[in-house]
């Protein structure tokens, strides 16, 4: 790299004043960001603070319970021996039983700790340090850094001699870091769950991490009581502090000597690390991250094949050409002319025939004849009905007369 990113060191008393301008960034901050390494190392390292615990090995087993076997209309689970108490005859020992022992009781010899390769741990730390210099990552982690003058924030060594917490607070206020502390204070909540009764009452967020160099620095005591702030020596950088929760981008405040020490600690790309024996910083996969330039370069474009066009052989849906004229014309252009010829032929055939005109005179005559016949029929039926009536009347009157006579 021809140009090296530069960083300013700020005065402890005045955030606008710069005591040292244009210090080169330590090579650690150029390490490729490897969240996969960090998350792997973090999940394993985080297990190393655990203390062994277990259930009582005798829990649930302090009975002389025995199964009653079959034939007694009860389940075959071991039952508490004896009599004279409710407990007798109750189920025991099983994980499903009330007052029974748990399944697979926890043992103290559970493997609580994990070992991680040193190289992986070192790469993770390097990446985590690099991430503290990337503003979007720090913001994404949730730190309130909008008023901070510079990321990474490097301050002169004067803060290492702070003894009073007020000094520490004022310093944080001056550099816009107090917003992060306020966040920590305002989001302190009582923890959900039983842990609150086991000494972990509050869930507290992480605030700024202050990194110093001189072992005799008094700032540890000054910053100790500020909520959310952690203080650590640069020689003892901890991944669990640099990337809490496996999440990259802690807000870090460096002192000038701590910042300068990073090159010795992690080495550069030209020299291996002095303090970490044989450690060389991870090299990035891409030396030229300008993808647009690479893609558009002549070297790449010469080799690139032309873009594939989707060559569709046939229409997706088959239409019946015997019914669909468009489909037919696509297959056989002559079909249009054939259709036209067919319709013309039909028309030609029907040209000579005359329309049959209805003969009105004939219609009238037939209508008259029909009326005549129907009238005659009506008269005839009427006459017949009347005749029948007469006969009936005559018959019944005769009968009546005969009855009256008798």
């Amino acid at each position, binding site marked *: 790299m021809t140009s090296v990113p530069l960083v300013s060191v700020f005065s402890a008393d005045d955030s606008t004043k710069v005591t040292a301008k244009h210090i080169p960034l330590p090579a650690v901050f150029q390490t490729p960001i490897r969240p996969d390494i960090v998350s792997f190392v973090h999940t394993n390292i985080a297990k190393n603070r655990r203390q062994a615990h277990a259930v009582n090995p005798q829990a649930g087993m302090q009975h002389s319970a025995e199964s009653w076997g079959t034939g007694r209309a009860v389940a075959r689970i071991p039952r508490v021996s004896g009599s004279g108490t409710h407990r007798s005859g109750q189920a025991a020992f099983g994980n499903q039983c009330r007052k029974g022992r748990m399944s697979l009781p926890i043992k103290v010899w559970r493997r609580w700790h994990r070992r991680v390769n040193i190289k992986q741990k070192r790469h993770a730390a390097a990446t985590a340090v690099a991430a503290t210099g990337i503003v979007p990552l720090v913001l994404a982690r949730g730190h309130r850094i909008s008023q901070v003058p510079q990321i990474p924030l490097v301050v002169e060594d004067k803060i290492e001699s702070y003894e009073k917490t007020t000094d520490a607070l004022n310093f944080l206020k001056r550099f816009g870091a107090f917003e992060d502390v306020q966040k920590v204070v305002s989001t302190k909540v009582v923890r959900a769950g039983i842990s609150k009764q086991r000494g972990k009452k509050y869930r507290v967020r992480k605030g700024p991490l202050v990194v110093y160099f001189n072992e005799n620095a008094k700032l540890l005591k000054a910053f100790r009581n500020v909520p959310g702030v952690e203080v650590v020596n640069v020689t003892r950088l901890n991944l669990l502090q640099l990337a809490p929760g496996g999440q990259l981008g802690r807000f870090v405040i460096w002192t000038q000597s701590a910042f300068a020490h990073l090159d010795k600690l992690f080495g550069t790309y030209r020299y291996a690390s002095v303090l970490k024996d044989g450690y060389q910083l991870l090299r990035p996969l891409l030396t030229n991250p300008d993808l647009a330039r690479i893609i558009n370069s002549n070297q790449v474009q010469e080799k690139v094949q032309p873009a594939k066009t989707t060559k569709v*052989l*046939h229409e997706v849906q088959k239409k019946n050409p015997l019914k669909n004229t468009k489909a*037919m014309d*696509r*297959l*056989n*252009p*002559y079909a249009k002319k054939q259709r036209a010829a067919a319709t013309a032929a039909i028309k030609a055939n029907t040209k000579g025939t005359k329309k049959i005109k209805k003969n009105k005179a004939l219609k009238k005559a037939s209508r008259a004849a029909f009326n005549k016949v129907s009238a005659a029929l009506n008269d005839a039926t009427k006459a017949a009905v009347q005749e029948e009536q007469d006969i009936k009347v005559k018959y019944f009157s005769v009968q009546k007369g005969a009855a009256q006579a008798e």
Partner: protein
Amino acid sequence: MSQKKQQMQVEQKVPENVAKKTQRDTKLRDAVAKRRTERLAANKTRRAQWEKSAQAYEAEYKAADKSLVDNLRKAKTEGGFYVPAEAKLILVVRIRGINTLNPQVRQTLRLLKLRQLHNAAFVRVNKATIEMIRKVEPYVTYGYPSRTVIKNLVYKRGYAKINGQRIPITNNNVIEQSLGKVGIHSVEDLIHEITTVGPHFKEANRFLWAFKLRGPRGGFIAKRRSFINQGDWGNREDLINDLVKRMI
């Protein structure tokens, strides 16, 4: 920012990436446009060719019909007989399903492309194919298809075998791709090759997937009997057309 923009406008400088990309894009676009115009022109000539050949076939069919009628009339007037040529083409329709088949019959049906019930296929008539059909006679019905039936089958139920896939014949590119090299460029060419059993009948028939027909509207008479015995299987000569019309 606006000052910079003004600066850029004055100097007329374009970022290298953008310049290269626009150059490349215009070149590609021009190539595509050129290909398109070429393709459209080619299509126009092709369509004209299809129309011309379709017209020629129509005339050919008409002439063939006329000559048949003329010959029959001539024979009648002379008091003799005109026996038209024996059919060169047979349409075979599978009537029986797949269960309990004699292995030789099963294999022969497969060779005839009749893998499924109500599958239909064209078969050229020669000694070899006659023997094959005789083997499977109780499982198929066959006859001599008319021109309309052939045409309807290819248009409505016509699918091609391309790369082992069943591709619908929706445009003439499908035919051109497979049969262009033997001189069949359109559907009408294909139909003509089938009906007249031309020199490339083999390629044309192989190109066609078996016609998957529906069951006949109105039903069969009795599939267990031969056609001659008031049934369905076997040779029904010209009456295959009536059956297939109900099955298309």
